[in-house]
């Protein structure tokens, strides 16, 4: 069980830089569309790593199922809301930033 617990810790640590880079991207990227890229993709992978890590540490099927379901629901919510935000920006005629 020690191995499971430690590999869980490793996965959780692996997930952290994704969250960090999602936030850095949100601050550094130039417009709404590129920022959406940063938030949805990086955070989904980060959450996936943390969910898998916690599932390995929990050593319980019920908790594992719950964590995976939470990840799935977050995936659905974030990709749908990302699309809706991008669509509303397109409809407001917000032009994407392009390389000068």
């Amino acid at each position, binding site marked *: 069980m020690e191995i499971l617990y430690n590999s869980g810790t490793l996965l959780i640590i692996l997930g952290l830089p994704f969250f960090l*880079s999602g936030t850095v991207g949100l601050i550094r990227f130039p417009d709404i569309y590129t920022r*959406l*890229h940063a938030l949805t*993709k990086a955070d989904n*992978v980060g959450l996936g790593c943390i969910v898998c890590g916690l599932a390995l540490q929990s050593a319980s099927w*019920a908790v594992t199922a*719950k964590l995976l379901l939470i990840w799935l629901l977050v995936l659905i919510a974030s990709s749908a809301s990302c*699309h809706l935000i991008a669509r509303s920006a397109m409809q407001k005629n917000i032009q994407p930033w392009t*390389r000068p």
Partner: protein
Amino acid sequence: MIRDHRFVKDFTFVSFSPQFFFRILVFSTVWFVLTGSDISSWIVGVPAVLIASKLNLMLAPSSHYSISLSGALRFVPFFLNQSFRGGIDVMRRALSAKQLLNPGLVSYVTLLPEGSARIFFVNTISLLPGTLSAELHGNQVTIHTLDRGLPIWANIQNLEYHVAALIHISSDKKKSL
């Protein structure tokens, strides 16, 4: 107007169809997994499950295709691999000292049938490396990309193929993808 009429007709709770029971079963399972064995949580859970089932039935009536198990088994590793690469890609661009962005818009015409398959496709585009679905008009998807140098068309066609394999659609349609 047609929509409003359907809304009124469907909201009468008269037709307890098999599809409705199937949705109740699915949403009850979701609620059970999320809340565990706490019986009192069903005070909120029962209305939530009923409303979700009814809304789901109204917004997405029966789909004309079923999900292929082998397609789903191939889709999961594909999806995990792609979204991991998408995360790495964003990380590289966000943390690099140089400006690595070269964004632009791309238009793509999908051959997937209207309904759940197309919506699923549009939503998963946002999880591929460097692409984000910005708009859907009929069968035309407007895609925003972080880097116009990426092989966007090839990536999206690949995703479209995987989504088509996920559902049972006629094989000649699949070939044309």
